[in-house]
């Protein structure tokens, strides 16, 4: 055997060995390997995509404009305090992203603009109208997206999902991937809850309070709000509490007239956990404030004894107990006819903190585990049948040379799986299709070379010369056709979503490896045959 042929076989042997080592974690054999092997050798293999192992792929949009609005409101509130502090008389009101300050006097203007240089005047008539500068608004939106990302990550960690992927995409989108999750609906609720906890006082002193009915049917909220719009005081609002009848399970809504002003929010919490109410054997969530929160809570309760304080989460009242006495120690509780899971989830979102702005679901792809395993089985089946048919066809059409092509084909499959495993690539259902198509395309190179060899043989060349010039002349044809496939695969990779990226990966790897197996693999076998003795006739 010529040295150069031997080296090529060594090269093929080494790549096959490497491929097997990399792919081993995906086979049942891996669990029988010794400990040192599992620890030191490649142990990840090919990962299954969400479409094959089941799970959810979610895309959320962070409503950055709402975050800007919230900041604007906060600034408007502190401007009011500022005017009082500076002993200036004036009005501050906010609508949407604009803050209107009147009167337009030098003192007022100076006070506002010196304290808040981030405000840009948009109108200077009788009133001064401000909005946050574009740069500041961008910063707030960016911050909101980052914070939302952190908060969601926290919540998912506490909920307990193995290997979640959570990342930002574009300016204001967050992608969450939860593989193998059993209860996707619950996870989505945990992620999507803004979890803005607020404490507000119930306004029982207003004459309107007496007119408001004790309860309305679920769904009747809108009608009641429009009935009372205009009647309620400007500093008040109506929110609803969900009431479940303990005997009948009927759900009604209790409207409550509340002061708009938020006394306290959930950002002063240090702990939220689930406890069981001894009396009704119902879970509730107990809250613990940090030192500053405890002090504030003590002050508020002390100043409002015998009044009702509403505990509000995301705009819904959970309870509105009467403050019996000044509460020190920084503890509060949220009750509200929870199931155990609901209470647990609520505790999670409160612990992880509120989202800086509401988020909106843009996309949700959920795949159940059974569909995934069905797909894998179907993919294996199609792959095996496709391979067997191609192998048979090649042997019938090209005889012994067909066997050599089949050897290259198997080499192709082994190396492709090994390459994917070495890259820890993700296998998706379209990815499986890519592998199977690559099998069909893999023999194409051999077909092109064999046909060339046939041409050369017909032209009267010896088998050895036919092999050599067949390879030489077919090379560029094979190369060109592979490059065009790679171009489209690259475009697909660039534009595709997860499953389609998987397709692009398997197809392009398959095509690239095919160049190697066809040009090194089969050629070496032919050279080996030709090197032994002068072959009289080529079985092709």
């Amino acid at each position: 055997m010529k040295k150069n042929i031997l080296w090529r076989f060594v090269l093929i042997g080494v790549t096959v060995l490497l491929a097997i080592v990399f792919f081993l974690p995906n086979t049942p054999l891996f669990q029988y390997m010794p400990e040192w092997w599992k620890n030191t050798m490649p142990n990840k293999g090919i990962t299954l995509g969400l479409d094959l192992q089941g799970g959810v792929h979610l895309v959320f949009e962070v409503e950055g404009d709402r975050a800007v609005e919230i900041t604007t409101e906060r600034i408007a509130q502190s401007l009011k305090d500022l005017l009082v502090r500076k002993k200036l008389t004036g009005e501050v009101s906010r609508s949407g992203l604009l803050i209107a300050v009147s009167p337009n006097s030098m003192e007022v203007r100076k006070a506002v603009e010196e304290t808040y240089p981030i405000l840009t005047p948009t109108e200077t008539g009788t009133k001064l109208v401000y909005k946050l500068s574009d740069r500041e608004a961008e910063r707030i939106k960016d911050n909101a997206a980052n914070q939302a990302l952190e908060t969601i990550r926290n919540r998912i960690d506490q909920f307990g999902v193995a290997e979640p992927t959570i990342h930002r995409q574009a300016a204001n989108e967050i992608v969450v991937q939860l593989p193998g999750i059993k209860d996707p609906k619950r996870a989505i609720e945990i992620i999507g809850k803004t979890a803005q906890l607020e404490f507000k006082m119930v306004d029982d002193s207003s004459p309107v309070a007496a007119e408001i009915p004790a309860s309305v049917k679920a769904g009747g909220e809108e009608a009641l709000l429009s009935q009372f719009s205009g009647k309620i005081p400007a500093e008040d609002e109506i929110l609803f509490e969900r009431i479940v009848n303990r005997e009948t399970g009927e759900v009604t809504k209790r409207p409550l007239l509340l002061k708009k002003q938020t006394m306290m929010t959930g950002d002063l919490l240090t702990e939220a956990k689930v406890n069981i109410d001894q009396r009704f054997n119902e879970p509730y969530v107990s809250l613990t404030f940090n030192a500053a929160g405890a002090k504030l809570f003590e002050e508020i309760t002390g100043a409002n004894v015998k009044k009702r304080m509403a505990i509000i989460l995301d705009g819904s009242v959970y309870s509105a107990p009467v403050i019996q006495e000044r509460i020190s120690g920084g503890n509060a509780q949220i009750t509200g006819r929870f199931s155990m899971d609901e209470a647990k989830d609520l505790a999670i979102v409160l612990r992880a903190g509120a989202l800086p702005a509401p988020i909106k679901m843009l996309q949700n792809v959920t795949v159940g585990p059974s569909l995934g395993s069905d797909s894998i089985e179907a993919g294996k089946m199609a792959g095996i049948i496709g391979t067997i048919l191609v192998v048979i066809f090649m042997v019938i059409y090209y005889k012994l040379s067909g066997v050599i092509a089949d050897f290259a084909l198997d080499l192709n499959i082994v190396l492709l799986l090994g390459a994917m495993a070495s890259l820890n690539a993700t296998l998706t259902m379209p990815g499986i299709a890519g592998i199977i198509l690559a099998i069909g395309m893999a023999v194409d190179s051999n077909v092109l070379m064999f046909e060339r060899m046939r041409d050369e043989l017909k032209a009267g060349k010896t088998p050895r010369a036919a092999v050599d010039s067949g390879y030489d002349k077919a090379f560029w044809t094979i190369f060109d056709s592979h490059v065009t496939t790679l171009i489209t695969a690259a475009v697909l990779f660039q534009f595709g979503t997860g499953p389609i990226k998987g397709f692009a990966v398997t197809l392009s790897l398959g095509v690239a490896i095919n160049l190697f197996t066809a040009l090194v693999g089969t050629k070496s076998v032919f050279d080996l045959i030709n090197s032994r003795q002068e072959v009289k006739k080529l079985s092709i």
Partner: protein
Amino acid sequence: MLELIKGTKIDFLGKRKFAFIFSGILSVLGIFAIIQVANGKANLGIDFAGGTSIQLKFEKPIKLHEVRVALEEGGVRDFDLQDLPAVQKILIREKKTHQQLGQVSDTITGIISQKFPDNKYVVDSTTLIGPKVGGKLRVDAGQAVLLATLGILIYIAIRFKFDFAVGATVATFHDVLAVLAVFYFLGKEINLILVTALLTIAGYSLTDTVVVFDRIRENLRTRLKEPVEAVMNTSINEVLSRTIVTSFTVLITSFALFFFGGEVIHDFSLAMILGVIIGTYSSIFVASPIALFWEKKGFLKKRK
């Protein structure tokens, strides 16, 4: 030596008028399909149109029209139903999302559980796509197809002469348009998976064209006295068997995918089968005649 096709002397280019008429019609239909897709009048998958799709797998066989009636009574509007009776699956698609994303699937599963209490089911998959995402994906897909075609055009122009590049690109565009036209008129769903198949077809159908062009280029160098048309005809005949064999092996695997690959990949395999067949046809009947046409117009006169 087993040869299915040998020593053929078919006058392929002589039949170019019929080929141009046939392919012209296919391409026009394909362009029509693109216009319909752009206007949202085709059967767009929810990844392009936005909406909700739910796939349910039932324990017992279930009748499609019973599900339809149940959903209509439950107040669900604008939905499509499709069943896979062999595996007792039903696919429900709701395109015009009036409700907040996420509620539609709850409504639908609620209705099904209530109306068919003794036929248990599992939710195989749910997909919810907001309208914004759908619009973006549609634009992305269009750009991807254009980008891929441009890439191929440039590569072929570098490797071959420009008139060959024109022939190859027209043939490739033709293949993509033809498959799209067939899908549109069969009422099949136009979705991301189909676009993936179309791009794969664009890349793969070039293999045959490259094989033919390589031979033409080679023969043009040796047969200087023959007219270009005759050289092209001889070349196509010479490589006819490999053109068909290479397509045949990919067809084998595409058929394996079509019959055994499961429902997720079913339409993808159909597109591949169509694409490979049309691609083989176009590499013979479209690519070379276009190159010839371009040459006759005087762009290829540099040949010595």
